[in-house]
């Protein structure tokens, strides 16, 4: 169940891996020739242990960057929002900031605060969703139901402010589209207190409840800080090994330079550290939101800018719930972009995910993979090859999940 050292020579023979060391050798070997289907992750095992993981993430590729070159600047904001339903606001924010950087206009202070409030509400909803999913994958279904119920509180606030639960469409260039409604302040502060209490309660649960302990303590290959950086890990995947890497701290945007907060880091390096980290971040976010609504400055919420964006290139990055999100834009001086590049945090965290899975047992795969907070559908289909028996098979996410639960808690499946 826990990470042990694999026998290197056998692994190398089977999967052609080269051992990784800090002497800059490449940690990824040549692709195993056996697997051809379009499943989203392919795992190569020796018996019960994972030796190699190949990501096949194109299942959600639609061609947004190309489409962006044919649509007006403002339309792209609402298209890129729909890259991801869970962190949609921060996509539109990052794109907006990249484009705003090409203009001479400034974002009004009130709009920066509202952007922060929505971004932090999104962080809370995303982390609550994730902790719930961890409960679901680990076999603690009640946690899933509770977390997603708490999430509804946050979604109610988001809906009251923006009109929608998921794709909030709150951003505009140099501002936000809607103002904070009258009288929301007390409601928000009160709900944030409630969320904080719940987060503290769950923190206790993951440290004491048997299902969560068994499935998360010491689970996941331990990586050190240098490895995490060389693998370009971002967000919680960098912070859980102790790196102080958070865009809100290192390169403040929106109102993050005015609203005080502490970043959360841990150093245990296992899946449970990630649970603690994200739950602690919920508390930090709740405090930031309360502060921001109490200190919301007066003033306009938007500066209208012309539809033609001056020529040049610019980039922006934000701290999405899953990690750093990065946008690069290039303008030829027209109404449509010349190039937009969007890099989601999950893409940056896949190399470290592959590293975390090495040496783990099949039963731990769902929990370890979910630990990086991948796109929701990434786990829908996975294929496996056991080099000991030459058996190949494909599982849906649900089948993998049930396998893991059965392995750890066989008594639940007795008639």
């Amino acid at each position: 169940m826990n990470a042990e050292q694999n026998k290197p020579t056998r692994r190398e023979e089977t999967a052609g891996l080269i051992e990784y060391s800090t002497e800059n050798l490449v940690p990824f070997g040549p692709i195993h020739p056996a697997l051809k289907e379009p499943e989203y992750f392919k795992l190569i095992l020796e018996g019960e242990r994972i030796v190699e993981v190949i990501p096949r993430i194109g299942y959600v590729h639609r061609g947004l960057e190309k489409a962006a070159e044919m649509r007006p600047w403002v339309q792209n904001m609402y298209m890129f929002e729909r890259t991801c339903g869970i962190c949609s606001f921060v996509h539109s924010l990052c794109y907006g900031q990249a484009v705003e950087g090409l203009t001479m206009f400034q974002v009004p202070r009130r709009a920066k605060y509202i952007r922060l409030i929505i971004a932090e509400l999104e962080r809370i909803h995303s982390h609550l969703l994730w902790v719930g999913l961890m409960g679901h994958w680990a076999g603690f279904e009640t946690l899933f139901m509770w977390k997603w119920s708490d999430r509804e509180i946050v979604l109610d606030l988001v809906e009251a402010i923006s009109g929608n639960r998921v794709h909030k469409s709150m951003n505009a260039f140099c501002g936000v589209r809607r103002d904070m409604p009258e009288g929301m302040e007390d409601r928000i502060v009160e709900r944030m207190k409630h969320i904080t209490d719940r987060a503290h309660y769950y923190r206790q649960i993951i440290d004491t409840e048997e299902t969560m302990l068994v499935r998360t303590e010491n689970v996941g290959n331990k990586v050190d800080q240098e490895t995490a950086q060389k693998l370009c890990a971002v967000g919680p995947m960098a912070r859980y090994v102790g790196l102080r890497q958070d865009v809100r701290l290192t390169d403040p945007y929106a109102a993050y330079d005015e609203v005080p907060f502490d970043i959360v880091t841990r150093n245990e390096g296992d899946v449970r550290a990630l649970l603690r980290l994200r739950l602690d971040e919920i508390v930090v976010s709740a405090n930031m939101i309360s502060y921001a609504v109490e200190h919301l400055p007066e003033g306009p919420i938007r500066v209208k800018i012309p539809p033609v964006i001056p020529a040049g290139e610019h980039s922006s990055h934000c701290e999405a719930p899953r990690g750093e999100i990065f946008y690069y834009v290039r303008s030829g001086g027209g109404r449509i972009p010349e190039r937009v590049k969007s890099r989601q945090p999950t893409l940056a965290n896949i190399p470290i995910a592959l590293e975390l899975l090495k040496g783990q047992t099949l039963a731990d795969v769902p929990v370890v993979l979910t630990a990086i907070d991948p796109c929701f559908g990434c786990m829908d289909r996975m294929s496996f090859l056991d080099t000991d028996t030459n058996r190949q098979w494909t599982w849906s996410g649900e089948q993998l999940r049930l396998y893991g639960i059965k392995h750890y808690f066989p008594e639940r499946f007795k008639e």
Partner: protein
Amino acid sequence: MSETLLERITTFAAESNTKAVPLRKGETLVEVDQANIKAFISHLLNDLALRHLATITGLDLGQNLGITYHFIQGQETIHVRTSVPKTNPAALSIVDLIPGAILYEMEIHDMFGVTFTGNPWIDQKLLLPDDWPADLPPPLLKTSKPAEIRKRLGLETAQK
């Protein structure tokens, strides 16, 4: 006395005959030949202690394909751009310097057709379907048309 990162980059660029162009608001663009790209990036990692490669972006520059490495440190961003001709889109992989770049290079290979020598997964598709027609040019080239690609991938609709 602390020199900003951008100042140090500009100094190093001048010393090694590469161009450093300040962009807006804390960003700098440095253009480096393919022949020097790995040495330059090694310098960024080892001597300037740059730790974070945000991503790598491909660009259609007309005759050439641009490959831009975006390094971020605090509030400063360095865009390091190299280019390869469209007639021979072969570049050097930096996976031995920064293993995490493996997927970023694969993406540029999918989208622009640049091969990165030294990347062990470069023959594998990351985002495009495995059965992408061999004679269909990479999608992010300016000459590629989405309608044409959709037809070839069998995604054209019956509905009007």
